[in-house]
């Protein structure tokens, strides 16, 4: 393959990746999920005051609703706010940027570890497949920390392999891998295991004199980077996510498959916790290799998937099966085989210890080995084709499949997701905030909290002064930031009160009431003689919010 052609394919893949992730970035999804708004406002608060909205200076993990968020993504938003403002685009931009940056590093990594026979084809094909991957695109267009973490993991592994020939690179690798760990919860498990596996594989080299000095230096720097994380590692805040979700916390959750109405004598056997939990773990783990999940069902979460789009395209299925067979059987693939299988087997672990079946967020790192496998399957298939005509037919099939895939991406991400899942993305708050700005300023506003935490959405879209918010809404002292898990249930943003509507008292004085269609029903409007100020609709025509004015007279 000529250099020019290689470069053309590489650059085209990157351009495709940019188009698929940048098109309508910040506009589709049109809504802004409360976690996204929370991260954006935390960053805004850090920028303006050096403290988050709870008044904690530069947190190591960020307090957020009922759990804690990893810090890297939030700190990445901070410098973007002066450039782009506090917007949906800004909070999603790091995901986009790092998803694009992953491509060249993955290319370089694969170039390093692929045997000569496939040195050109596998890296280029994998990069192309990653560029059009629905799984990677989803997290490259929305505010999820997992994509940023994946970049640090892949670039760290690349510099590790580069370090095997030029040891100084081991220091860069250590820094990048150390940043990967606090970038996303799943990386607390994946990165150390990958490091361990790489170390075992190359221990002979790494323990020789040539490598020892940069290895120790890298280790020390990584430790220094990890000190803040380690200093809070045992606090309830740091462990909140892991404790709340993992299947081993049997004291919190009844193991799946527990049978009720059993005779007492049989209960200890049939409902044996070790049996039930280990079965659930194996089942969850295996589900990440299931073609049904990968090519059809995808993630069941409405924000971690797009309608009618799974994590992979269905036309890739036969190549996945063929590639899987090849990667297991073909020992000539050497380092590529080792890396792919190691990453394939490690990647689902953090997701498999949590209850959710096929969580594409926690297992995002798996997209890399799976695409390598699909790429390998494509190449193996190509190699089996002897006749020129069958090769042409295969190329036509691929071309049409790829064109169809682009249409599918547009159909799911831009058309169907906006129409069917606007409510899942907390659509409507931007318009609520705009309307609030135009209401009579001397009349108080009550925003109902019955179903969602709207305070963070309003803080975000009103760009509410963080200093004022910190002063008026004390929730936790900095010393108890990581340990106190209780929350306040009402908030004050100037003349806006965010709490449940009390129909008995709130209607006897003049004020605006804001709530969704269930909080403020037509019956209540009639009964309390309320004046409808505005209705805000989801794209599918269903009412999202109602803004009404009380009429005490």
């Amino acid at each position: 393959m000529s250099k020019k052609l290689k470069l053309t394919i590489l650059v085209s893949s990157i351009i495709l990746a940019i188009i698929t992730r940048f098109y309508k970035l910040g506009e589709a999804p049109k809504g802004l999920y409360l976690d996204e708004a929370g991260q954006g406002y935390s960053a805004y608060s850090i920028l303006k005051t050096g403290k988050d909205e709870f008044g904690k200076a530069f947190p190591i993990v960020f307090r957020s609703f009922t759990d804690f968020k990893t810090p890297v993504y939030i700190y990445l938003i901070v410098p973007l706010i002066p450039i782009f403002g506090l917007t949906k685009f800004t909070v999603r931009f790091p995901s986009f940027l790092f998803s694009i940056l992953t491509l060249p590093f993955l290319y370089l990594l694969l170039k390093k570890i692929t045997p000569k026979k496939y040195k050109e084809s596998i890296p280029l094909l994998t990069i192309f497949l990653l560029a059009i991957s629905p799984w990677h695109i989803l997290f490259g267009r929305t505010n999820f920390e997992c994509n940023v973490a994946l970049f640090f993991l892949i670039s760290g592994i690349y510099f590790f392999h580069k370090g095997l020939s030029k040891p100084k690179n081991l220091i860069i690798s250590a820094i990048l891998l150390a940043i990967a760990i606090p970038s996303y919860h799943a990386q607390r498990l994946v990165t150390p295991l990958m490091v361990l596996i790489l170390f075992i594989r190359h221990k002979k080299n790494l323990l020789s004199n040539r490598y020892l000095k940069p290895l120790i230096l890298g280790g020390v720097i990584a430790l220094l980077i990890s000190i803040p994380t380690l200093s809070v590692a045992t606090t309830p805040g740091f462990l909140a996510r892991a404790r709340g979700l993992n299947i081993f916390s049997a004291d919190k959750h009844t193991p799946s498959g527990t049978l009720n109405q059993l005779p007492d004598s049989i209960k200890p056997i049939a409902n044996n916790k070790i049996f039930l939990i280990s079965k659930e773990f194996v089942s969850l783990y295996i589900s990440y290799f299931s073609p049904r999940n990968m090519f059809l069902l995808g993630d069941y979460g409405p924000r971690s998937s797009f309608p009618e789009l799974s994590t992979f395209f269905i036309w890739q299925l036969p190549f996945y099966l063929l590639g899987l067979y090849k990667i297991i059987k073909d020992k000539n693939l050497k380092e590529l085989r080792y890396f792919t299988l190691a990453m394939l087997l490690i990647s689902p672990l953090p997701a498999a210890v949590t209850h959710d079946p096929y969580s594409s967020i926690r297992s995002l790192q798996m997209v890399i080995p799976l695409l390598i496998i699909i790429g390998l399957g494509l190449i193996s298939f190509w190699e089996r084709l002897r006749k020129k005509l069958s090769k042409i037919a295969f190329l036509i099939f691929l071309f049409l499949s790829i064109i169809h895939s682009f249409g599918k991406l547009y159909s799911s991400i831009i058309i169907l997701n906006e129409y069917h899942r606007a409510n899942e993305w907390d659509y409507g708050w931007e318009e609520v905030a705009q309307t609030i700005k135009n209401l009579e300023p001397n009349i108080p506003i009550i925003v109902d909290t019955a179903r969602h935490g709207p305070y963070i959405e309003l803080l975000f879209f009103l760009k509410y002064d963080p200093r004022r918010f910190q002063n008026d809404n004390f929730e936790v002292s900095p010393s108890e930031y990581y340990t106190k898990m209780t929350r306040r249930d009402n908030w004050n943003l100037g003349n806006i009160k965010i709490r449940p509507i009390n129909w008995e008292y709130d209607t006897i004085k003049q004020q605006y009431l804001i709530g969704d269609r269930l909080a403020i029903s037509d019956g209540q409007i009639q009964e309390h003689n309320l004046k409808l100020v505005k209705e805000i609709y989801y794209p599918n025509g269903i009412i999202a919010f109602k803004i009404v004015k009380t009429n005490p007279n």
Partner: protein
Amino acid sequence: MKKIIIFLGLVFWPLGLYLTNQTNKLWVYFSPALLILASFFLYKKKSKFYPLPIILIPLVDSKLALFPVICAALLIFTHKNHSLKFKAIFIFISLLILFIVRKQFISQSIFKLEYESKQKILREINLYPNPLFARIYQNKAKIISDKMIGNLLALIDPGNYFFSFHPREGILVNKNLIKYPFLAIIPFFLSFIGIKMVKHKRFFILILVSGILSLTFIEIFDESDFILWLPLAYFYLNGWKKLSLNKNKLSTYLFYLLFLLNSIIELSRIFFVYK
């Protein structure tokens, strides 16, 4: 101990089927498996009449009308030593039987379109900026292809056979029968990895692939999928054979023990789950 373990693994699926059905319905699910067994004995004895029991399957369960047709079609490519006349007769009789039971088959197949699915497509079409784009991604053929892909992927999903799909996946239209103890996934994996060494693999792959493909066209394949019991049981047995060749006897015995304990627990649960 090994024989008990193997028996334990094989008994789950038929037992689940037995406990969840009335006797008159059982016949419909068990007899295709018995016919396949008869076909295997004929195949083993190198009788050229071995497809005969397979041809009879649609007469017992009309849902499986495509099974002999697909089997005959695959035979053309896979069993090149059979004469053309033999293949032609096999495919002709299969098609004839398919024609006879076509009405019963179509009423239970994915080709029967529901009113609501068609309406959904019509609603979705209006969301697209131009009709051509809409027609490519929202059309009636999509209803059928989606069901087909859904069935096919469910039938090749390890979760279907070892975990009744996902433990937290609700039982919807399917009964999600417990088919194998979950640790049986290891002998299965070993068997498929070393498939080249499996005796009579041609016959069992033919049955397995034809079975999976024919079930793909059924609206609800649950329970009719028992035709896969025999080929899967065969691969399961081969997996154990391969496992027993493991040089590290201690780890093998430990696995036997673990498998035995797990299977006893799972078996005890079957009686209460399907009570």
